[in-house]
Every structure is written in structure tokens, then in C-alpha cells.
């Protein structure tokens, strides 16, 4: 199988997920990396260690990611090179342009893939219901597009591939224009610096209950953080959000209260030294990353903890 993996970079750094895509590509057949930008020699060199071939697509207009231009140049390359499988990272960038590219390639697409089996046709595995259930999807025709979840294909082989200048430029200017990147706002509390984090999710139910979590954090000597819905609802400020679109934390203790454990949240806390989760649903995916699990109502557990911590 001829596999093309589209690399990703931002702020001068190659996203390590690009290598994971190549790990998968090497399992499936001939691995081709594609890297798009203004000056991508550095990235091409890195990718060549894991790919049979690396295709460079360079142009001044490609300095910042633009989905229309990416699709334009990729279609030109794929028209000539005829891939069987196109791999793209399931990131803010990849998840944005991959479905559009799939339509233009007349290709099936499966997003957020965590497993691929090629023994009998191509079958891609992914989670549904925010991690509670898994599904194997049979892909009915080739070529196909897969967006791949970070961390699913960590093991791979080394190569020393050939770097090829594809000699491709965008065929027309894009309608969408890049303006700028905006830095995250700095808040008063830097949750990444705290040894103990009491994190609350939608299970905390109401703004009024945040004070309970704050009391518990104080008793434990830590700070309060939250999952995205808690921040979306305005119960905690944005700088307290843990996860892929918030902060990555690695405290000594991460106490997750009423958090289901969606992938986007887990990516922000999975490397904590000790993870304790309280959730009333025994099937909640958070119990897959926690070291200790408590299947209970948080409103029964928090007061007991407070009682005993204060009375100690």
C-alpha cells in the first residue's frame, strides 16, 4: 500500500504526531511524508529518519497554515502520486482540512483513529460516546483518509528516506486569510505549578458548588481546576482549564471530581503522578487513566473528606 502522511508544524516545531503517522504508514506499506511550508528543510531532514520518501512543498504563501492552500497543493501531489491511504493528525489543523480533502479525493474518511487493521481490507478503530464505546469501521473504497489520534502509534522503525522537492505551488490565492496567532491569557493562578490539583467536571453541576471544591483544595494545600464545560459555563476562569485546549498539568496528585475522562481532557492530565477519580458512573473512561477510583456521588465524598481533613 502506498501511504502518505502529512506532517504538521507550528512556531518552528515539528509536531511529534507527524512521526507517529509515519510509524503507522510503515506498518501499512511504503511510507511517504509530505511537509508543507515556507522553508521546511529542517523538518524534512527529521522526517526522513522515519520515512521511505519525504516530499517537500515550499512557497512563501505557505508560511502559515491555510486549509485552502494545503488542500490545493496536496491535491496536486496526490493526482500524480496516487496514494492508497492518506494519514493526517487529528489536531486543530488536521481535523479541520481532512474532511474537505476527502471529499475532493472522492475518498472515505474516518476521524480520530486509534487502530488500523489491514489483513482483510482496511478496518479503522475509533471511540464513540466520548470514549465509552469502540467501533471498527470497514472502509469501502480506496483511496481513503484517516485522521489519527496522538499517542496511538508510538512504536516504529527507523529509515533513511529520500527527500524530494515536489515542485508544487498553490494554483490560486486562498479566500481565507491568516491574520495572527493569539497567545493564551495569563491568569492569576498558574495551575501547572501546583503539586495538588482538585479538578471538577460537569458533575459539579452548578457555580455555587465550586466553593466546595475550593474548600477541599485549601484543605489539601492545592488549587482548583476544571474540565472544559466548567470553563464554558463560566464557573471557573479559562486559565483553570485542563486539557488539549487548556493546560497540560503533571501534579503529584490530581483529584478528578465528576469528570468523565474524554480524550481531550485526559491529554492534559494523564502524566500526573497520582490520579484519583470520583465518578458515579462505574463505566466512566476516567477510571481507565486513574490509579485509584471511587464509584460514588461527589457530594457524598467531598464533605467526608473535608470533615476528616479538618479534624486531623
Amino acid at each position: 500500500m502506498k501511504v502518505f502522511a502529512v506532517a504538521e508544524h507550528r512556531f518552528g516545531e515539528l509536531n511529534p504526531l507527524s512521526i507517529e503517522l509515519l510509524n503507522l504508514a510503515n506498518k501499512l506499506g511504503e511510507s511517504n511524508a509530505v511537509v508543507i511550508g515556507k522553508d521546511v528543510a529542517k523538518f524534512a531532514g527529521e522526517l526522513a529518519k522515519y520515512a521511505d520518501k519525504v516530499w517537500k512543498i515550499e512557497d512563501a504563501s505557505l508560511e502559515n497554515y491555510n486549509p485552502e492552500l494545503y488542500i490545493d497543493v496536496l491535491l496536486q501531489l496526490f493526482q500524480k502520486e496516487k496514494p492508497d491511504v492518506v494519514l493526517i493528525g487529528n489536531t486543530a489543523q488536521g481535523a479541520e482540512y481532512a474532511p474537505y480533502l476527502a471529499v475532493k479525493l472522492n475518498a472515505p474518511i474516518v476521524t480520530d483513529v486509534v487502530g488500523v487493521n489491514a489483513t482483510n481490507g482496511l478496518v479503522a478503530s475509533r471511540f464513540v460516546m466520548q470514549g465509552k464505546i469502540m467501533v471498527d469501521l470497514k472502509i469501502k473504497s480506496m483511496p481513503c483518509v484517516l485522521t489519527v489520534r496522538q499517542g496511538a502509534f508510538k512504536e516504529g522503525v527507523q529509515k533513511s528516506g529520500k527527500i524530494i522537492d515536489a515542485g508544487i505551488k498553490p494554483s490560486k490565492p486562498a479566500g481565507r486569510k491568516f491574520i495572527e496567532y493569539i497567545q493564551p491569557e495569563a491568569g492569576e493562578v498558574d495551575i501547572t505549578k501546583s503539586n495538588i490539583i482538585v479538578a471538577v467536571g460537569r458533575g459539579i453541576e452548578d457555580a455555587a458548588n465550586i466553593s466546595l471544591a475550593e474548600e477541599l483544595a485549601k484543605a489539601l494545600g492545592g488549587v482548583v481546576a476544571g474540565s472544559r464545560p466548567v470553563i464554558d459555563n463560566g464557573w471557573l476562569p479559562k486559565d483553570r482549564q485542563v486539557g488539549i485546549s487548556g493546560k497540560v498539568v503533571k501534579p503529584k496528585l490530581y483529584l478528578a471530581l465528576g469528570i468523565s475522562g474524554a480524550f481531550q481532557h485526559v491529554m492534559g492530565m494523564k502524566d500526573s503522578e497520582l490520579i484519583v477519580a470520583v465518578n458515579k458512573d462505574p463505566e466512566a473512561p476516567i477510571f481507565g487513566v486513574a490509579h485509584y477510583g471511587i464509584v460514588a456521588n461527589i457530594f457524598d465524598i467531598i464533605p467526608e473528606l473535608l470533615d476528616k481533613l479538618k479534624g486531623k
Partner: protein
Amino acid sequence: MKIIVLAKHAPDPQSEVGVAGDGKSLSLGTAVFDINDWDRYAVEEAIRIKEKMGGEVVVVGVGKNEDTLRKCLAMGADRAIKIPFEAGLDAYQTAEVICEAIKNEKFDMIFAGLMSQDYNNSQVGVLLAAMLNLPFATAVTSIEIGSGMVKVKREIEGGYQEAVQLPMPCLLTIQSGINEPRYVSIMGIKKAKTKELKEVNIAPKKSTVEVAKMYLPPVKKAELITGDPSQIAKKLIAILKDRGLIG
């Protein structure tokens, strides 16, 4: 400003869900269905723009969608299009039938949710953009309308955002938290009853993927701390003390 919003009727991911006997579909027994959370933000955003600039908000739903479409009308959308087609297994088909249903509408923007809370594909919006050849942006967290164009911020990793500008017509997928969606008022529900909810029957032409198997994921499980709440608290504090995490 005329805005089309896609709204999915979806089971709450907090509900008890399992795999049905056929090993290929979800068993949703007692699951509570409501408007997909991301779509709630999308509908709210469209209504706010209409309230400020005038125009029309049209909601489109595929599947058993009537309750969600009625809810959108009660929030303030002007009319709804329902496509009762149910058999689809892939997002391609959902996008395809929506494309067919709206092809004669003249619109300035289409809003979809960034992701559905049940299947989590994050595809339908962008597939539709491709089928209609529209400029697009995903994970949008703010919208500023100019003349013939729109400036948006979109969310990327690590708390960063990217500001981009798009010509209209265009398609945006909306990230949660962009606004504070309103609650439906009694007045709204009354008014909604008089609004148009049109049903159009369309079936997709092709299918691109099929479910081979559905199952519970194999996971490493946490060690459980059990007992009544007081015992649990005692055991947990002992563990934390043991590790020197608390004094």
C-alpha cells in the same frame, strides 16, 4: 444576514449506553436525547447575529430530530427543515442529504457544531463545505462580521488561538463556550408552534464506511476504593498520607 444552522438530536453522553445485541450498533435504552451541546452554541450565535443585524436563521436536522428543531425555533430560529432519513452510517451521508436540502437556499453563512456529542466525528460541517465549495473555519470561538467578510478566532492547541478572515458565504463550525446559550421561554415555545417546520425526503446515493464491530474498549482499570463515604474518605486520606502528599 441569513444563516443556516445544523442541529443534531443526540443522546447525552452521560447516559448509560451499551452495545446492542447485533454487536454493531448502540443500545441507548434510557438515554436522554437533546440538542447536541455544540449545536446549542451555534444556534445561539446565529440568533444573536440576527437580532443585531436582521435576517433569518434556518435550522436543519437529519434523523429523528423534531424535538431539537422545535427547541431551536423556541430559542428564536425562524424556520426549520427536517430530513427524516435515518439509515445512514457515515457522516458523508449526513452531509450529502443536508447539501441537497439547502442547495436552493441563498445564505451568507452556515454554522455547524464542532463535534457531535455521541459519535464525535467532527466531519459533517467541513464535508458540507467541500460539497458546496465554501471557504470554512473550524473550532470558532468568536465572530466579527464585516462587509462581505467575517473575521473569526479559532481555537488551536494549548490555549492559543488563530485569527483568520473569510469571504462570505462561508461555513463555520462552532466551539463550545463561544456564548452563553439562552434558555427557552414559555413565550418562545408558544411562538415556535406557529413557525414553519418543513419535511423534505432525501436519501443519500452512496455509503463510504460500514460498521464491522462495536464493543466496549479494553481498558486498564483503576484500583477501586470502596465502602461507605466515611470509610472511603478515611482510606483515601490514608493513601495520601502514606505518599507524603498531606501532613
